[in-house]
């Protein structure tokens, strides 16, 4: 139980500045990426009009997520942001499921991963907003309803990044802590598999979906 909040770190001093790498997270992220690349390769290999099993799975994923993007944005923008939606969802779902395998850790359990993805969504949404509305109209929105509300509007936008990344992080890490404490208290008898199924599969899927949808919806709020 002593490893509640313990992190393996590699610290490289660089002059006065220290660069910190969370080794576990990096390795786990690479594993997720490798799984996704393998999946992608198996999906597009030997494409045919009578799809093989991997092709069916890939088409299901892509067309379903594409449809969701289309619901939130319009058709033209969905062509542009569809790949982002698919990539984000697949990365997150594999990340959240990874903890089910013993000795593996979810990359999303570390705040850096969700925060990085949240910042990415934030930058994409706002650059899309500037592109579609023009810089002047974009800036004007911050001064609504009155100009002195601007600081609070800016904090409100930043709070979206905080909420989207802490939602994922809190759910995954909370599940991991509850599993750790309960397994310790019950000497790993009976309960842990059910908790793993609930927090890993169910909550992991829901949170991956919510994160993806919120990223798309933030883009749609900025664009329109």
């Amino acid at each position: 139980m002593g490893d509640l909040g313990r992190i393996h770190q590699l610290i490289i001093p660089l002059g006065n500045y220290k660069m910190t790498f969370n080794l576990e997270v990096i390795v786990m992220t690479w594993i997720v990426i490798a799984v996704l690349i393998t999946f992608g390769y198996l999906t597009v290999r030997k494409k045919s009009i009578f799809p093989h099993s991997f092709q069916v799975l890939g088409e299901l994923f892509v067309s379903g997520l594409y449809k969701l993007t289309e619901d939130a944005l319009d058709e033209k923008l969905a062509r542009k942001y569809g790949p982002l939606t698919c990539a984000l969802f697949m990365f997150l779902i594999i990340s959240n499921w990874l903890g089910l395998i013993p000795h593996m850790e979810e990359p999303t359990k570390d705040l850096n991963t969700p925060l990085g993805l949240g910042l990415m969504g934030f930058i994409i949404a706002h650059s899309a907003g500037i592109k579609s509305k023009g810089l002047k109209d974009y800036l004007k929105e911050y001064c609504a309803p009155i100009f002195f509300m601007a600081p609070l509007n800016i904090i409100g936008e930043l709070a979206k990044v905080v909420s989207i990344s802490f939602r994922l992080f809190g759910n995954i890490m909370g599940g991991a802590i509850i599993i750790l404490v309960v397994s310790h208290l019950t000497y790993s008898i009976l309960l842990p598999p059910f908790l793993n199924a609930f927090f890993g599969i169910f909550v992991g899927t829901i949170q991956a979906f919510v994160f993806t949808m919120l990223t798309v919806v933030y883009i749609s709020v900025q664009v329109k």
Partner: protein
Amino acid sequence: MTVDIQFIVNASSYIGSAIAMGFGAIGAAIGVGYTAAMANSAIGEKPDSSGTLFKTMLVGQAVAESAAIFALVVSVLLIFRKVPAVGLHQAAAALGAGISMGFGAIGSGIGSGIPGGQVCLGLARQPAFSGRLIITFLIGSAVSQTPAILAMIVALMLLFIDFSNDLITAAALLGAGISMGFGAIGSGIGSGFPAGEACIGTARQPELAGSITTNMLIGSAVCQTPAIFSMVVALMLMFMKFSHAPLNPTWAALIGAGISTGLAAIGSGIGGGMAAGGSCEGISRQPRSVGQVTTIMLVGQAVAQTPSIFGLLVSFILMFKAFPEATTVSAAMALLGAGISMGFGGIGPGIGNGMAAESAAKWVARNLEKTGDLMRTMLVGQAVSQSTAIYAMVISLVLIFVV
């Protein structure tokens, strides 16, 4: 005058047992009454099947009552438990266990009364589907009991685990009790809404029973997130080592951490439940809408949970930041204030966001072509409602970092 530790531990056990039973009785009583009221109106509607309805009412009341029975168990344990007193942390643990169980039972009592009442109304409408309806109702009320069970687990852990004997641990244990107790209220009430709507919706569209039950389960499981956040904060407060930190401001930071997540979870739990209730109703009105309504429910619930996420953020900062030793009490009060500001500030926006999500989910079901517009309106409205939680978070952060 020397202070006898045994005396203090006993005294706080008694106070704790009173809190557990007194507050724990509130919710169950309301829930039981609601079930009876709905059963009355159902029997009035359909006097022929009064026998079945009467039996269903009794089952519903028994389920709702169990929250109070959990509280009774913890209360009796607190009174009659005999332990040799070694430190003040036992007093704090007893008080924390009482708060956790007492407040934690409120929500589940009310929440599990709602499906009990609605199933009576549903049975009056569709007596032929009583088997299906009763299964939906039992699943729904079992899920609504989850927060009370989490609260009872935390209360029993506080009572029966040996914690280290110092004053910082005492503050942490009190914080853990506060966090879990208040945090269970919202999720308990909230997960009653989808369960109730699922019962009445199954009666309206019996052939949709499967997809309504699935939707209810997803909705009420996501609605447990605020209670799970509170439990995580409670577990961290119980099991992390704080003894190296200076006592003076840290005790307030730990209690503040409990207050922040615990109170902020109330609104988010209720709000998430309202969104899930709206979506169950929507699906029962328009079977083709399952996909879109579930999506908008999840997005709405996610936004409704934002205040509890802010509460979690403030709690994490309060737990993990190393505060310099202070000689005056004002530094401690600033940290306690940070927890109070975020905690109470998070209640309203959670409920408000839930209202927006509820009506969005209902209207998407009636107007499937306009899903995009409705979602955008919901999000913009929620963003404005959210701003009060953001003000509260700004004040909390100022109290922690600037003062």
